[in-house]
């Protein structure tokens, strides 16, 4: 039977990856829906209202799964990582509590209002509910990233009584890592929302003969809104990623070197490795294709400068923190980085080219199935890119839970048996398989039913004045 550390790590990976399919999905589609509804309110075009309602259904499905899987995240620190919670609770608990108070209440309350007050409050107020949900979800991301940033780059603490104690809350919140991670993650979520909406619309447009006039127009317009959002998102993600990489070079050089597959220090100027495979046991590269100068440019924005390899960094880490294995899973980091960056580039290209070929004068994309297929298949790209990004970030922390302070080995709950962990792993895996399948099934079903299924737009006056009493006396 596997040991508790391995089982707990598998659980953390599994729950986090699954949860993170839905977090950016609901942040991103939430923004798309908010934009569509805002267009409805400003242009008074009922058409956009149909769009907002239609994509709103898909947003709600992903939100539901996101919420319930988030509960596991909050519980598992205590359940599987009690020593970590003891060591870090003074610092790590604070952002989680703030997240609940500041973000979750806002999100869930206004989501409830948004869902149940269509045509019952004025459209202007109704769209405000959706924006508040979006703001709530951004704040939630922010506070969770404050917590994660501390794990990547601890600041504002002292070690006291055998635990990390906070001594500067402002430093914790203004940790430079926070802004890099936040902009990267939010831009990634926005990209996902845009690309997924565009891609799902493209899937439906492939069946255009079976679509009604209304559905076709909804999907065409949605595709363009989605690509615009995807474009803004992917440009931002690229810029944020660039900043983040330079910060990584300083604060987590081992992660950086592993993501580049560098065991030895690079030449000066440094060549960038396009593809490679490393023998992690022998600590050497089996093969690789390199492009000269590019790593220096990526790292320093200059044509020169060498990058330290993992062997050098390992020596330094041993000197600083003692004898231990500091090599992260190199191939995993190397390839996750390329999956993330590669799909990021793909999404940027698809957004630009897609917008070009759907412009009003010459919208040829809608007529060419092969082009629609490309947009449609891109739906999966942001999920892969986001997941790869997190795997890079979290696996690259190895062997630390909090960088330089506390290791994964030390963090696990000593009183939880392997059997318990196995039971919970199997339970979660079963649940996730069911939830994931039902979710996909329902999204496809919603897409197939199309916006026609929504009731005809009503032109009634709002029936609820939320600020007036006595409206509902029986």
């Amino acid at each position: 039977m596997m040991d508790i550390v391995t089982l707990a790590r598998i659980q953390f990976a599994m729950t986090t990856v699954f949860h993170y399919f839905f977090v950016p999905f609901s942040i991103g589609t939430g923004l798309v829906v908010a934009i569509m509804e805002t267009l409805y309110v400003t242009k008074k075009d009922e058409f956009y209202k149909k769009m907002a309602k239609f994509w709103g259904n898909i947003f709600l499905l992903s939100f539901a799964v996101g919420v319930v899987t988030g509960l596991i995240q909050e519980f598992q620190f205590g359940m599987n990582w009690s020593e970590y919670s003891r060591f870090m609770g003074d610092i790590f608990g604070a952002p989680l509590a703030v997240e609940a108070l500041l973000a979750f209440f806002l999100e869930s309350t206004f989501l409830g209002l948004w869902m149940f007050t269509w045509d019952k409050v004025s459209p202007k107020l109704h769209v405000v509910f959706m924006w508040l949900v979006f703001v709530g979800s951004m704040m939630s991301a922010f506070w969770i990233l404050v917590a994660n940033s501390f794990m990547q780059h601890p600041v504002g603490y002292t070690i006291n009584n055998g635990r990390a104690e906070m001594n500067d809350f402002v430093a914790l919140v203004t940790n430079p890592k926070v802004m890099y991670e936040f902009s990267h993650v939010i831009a990634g979520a926005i990209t996902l929302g845009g690309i997924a909406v565009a891609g799902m619309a493209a899937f439906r447009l492939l069946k255009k003969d079976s679509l009604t006039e209304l559905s076709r127009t909804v999907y065409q317009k949605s595709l363009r809104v989605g690509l615009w959002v995807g474009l803004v998102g992917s440009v931002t993600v690229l810029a944020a990623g660039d900043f983040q990489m330079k910060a990584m070079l300083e604060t987590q050089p081992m992660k950086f070197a592993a993501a580049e597959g560098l065991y030895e220090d690079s030449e000066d100027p440094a060549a960038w490795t396009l593809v490679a495979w490393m023998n992690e046991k022998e600590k050497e590269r089996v093969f690789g294709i390199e492009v000269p100068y590019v790593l220096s440019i990526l790292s320093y924005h200059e044509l020169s400068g060498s990058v330290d390899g993992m062997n050098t960094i390992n020596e330094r880490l041993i000197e600083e923190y003692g004898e231990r294995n500091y090599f992260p899973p190199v191939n995993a980091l190397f390839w996750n980085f390329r999956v993330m960056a590669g799909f990021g580039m793909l999404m940027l290209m698809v957004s630009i080219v897609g917008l070009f070929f759907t412009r009003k004068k010459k919208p040829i994309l809608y007529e060419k199935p092969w082009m629609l297929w490309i947009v449609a298949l891109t739906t999966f790209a942001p999920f892969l890119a986001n997941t790869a990004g997190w795997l890079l970030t979290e696996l690259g922390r190895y062997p630390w839970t909090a960088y330089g302070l506390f290791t994964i080995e030390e963090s696990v709950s000593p009183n939880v048996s392997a059997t318990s962990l196995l039971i919970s792993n199997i339970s979660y895996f079963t649940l996730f398989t069911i939830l994931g399948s039902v979710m996909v099934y329902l999204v496809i079903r919603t897409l197939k039913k199309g916006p026609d299924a929504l009731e005809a737009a009503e032109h009634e006056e709002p029936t609820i004045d939320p600020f007036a009493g006595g409206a509902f006396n029986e």
Partner: protein
Amino acid sequence: MSNLQLFWYILIGVLFAGFFFLEGFDFGVGMSVKTLAHNEKEEDQLIETIGPVWDGNEVWLVTAGGAMFASFPYWYASLFSGYYLILLLVLVGLIIRGVSFEFRHHMPADKRWIWGWTLSIGSLIVPFCFGLLFTSLVQGMPINANGDLSATFTDYVNPLSIVGGVALTLLSYLHGLNYISLKTTGPIRTRARNYAQALYGVAYVGLVAFAILLYFNTDFFEVRLTSTVIFLALMVILTVVANLALFKGKEKTAFLASGLTMVSLVALLFTGLFPRLIISSISPEYDLLIENASSSPYTLKIMSFVAIGLLPFVLGYTIWSYYIFRKRIKHTDVAGY
């Protein structure tokens, strides 16, 4: 013990009390979906009474968990790792019930029943497990010097904890029935009232059994005699009040009384524990105390500012949203969420 530590202990108690008051009735409504409703239309009607608010209610639990982590990390670590399988069940319950609302709404007609069942079963598991958790906790748990809780089956499951689990489930169900009769019109409103009338008889028996077992299995009557007696008495009085109010058709009073019964129960457990967080059955030296399980004074101070600054807003818009949805859900025009 510092004032800040005391403040956070009370705050966590308040958060749990709020959770059971609010999500208590939506657990009850969830259970009612498969026990009270006679057809799908009525199921829809029931679900619509909590549709807009259940998610916000659940945040009380999330906040209680986050607050525990932030203010008493040792408590959070010991409790969550020690109650591993019970909390796993809680999570499974919360998950299957949380997705039910959306999934049920989007499912084809012939498969909707599945998600009515998951809603009901999930709504039953969670209060039962929490009842089990809190009432086994107050009896003392094998917790060692490091704060690691390694209990055996009978530590979790024993007469008091089973009665505790059943009692909390029953209280939630009653609270839900009171909410239903307050929030609906049509046949289901009358039926909910009749169900509740009948079940209050069982509740009295349960309360007496609970009080007796509490006397024999905990030290509450030795260390906290006054508060224990007061809160037990309050629970009985409030149950009587709810029962009478129901009889007279005063639905608001009945609902408030059943909610406050839950609050009294939380207060009973939290005052009985005080100043301990987890009682060690191995040695009193290993008791986890408010005093030695908390975060640093600095963290507590920062968190106090945050909590005091934000709570008024949270309460403000929560109340506002309940106000918006104050209308009774008619059985004739259910949207079908």
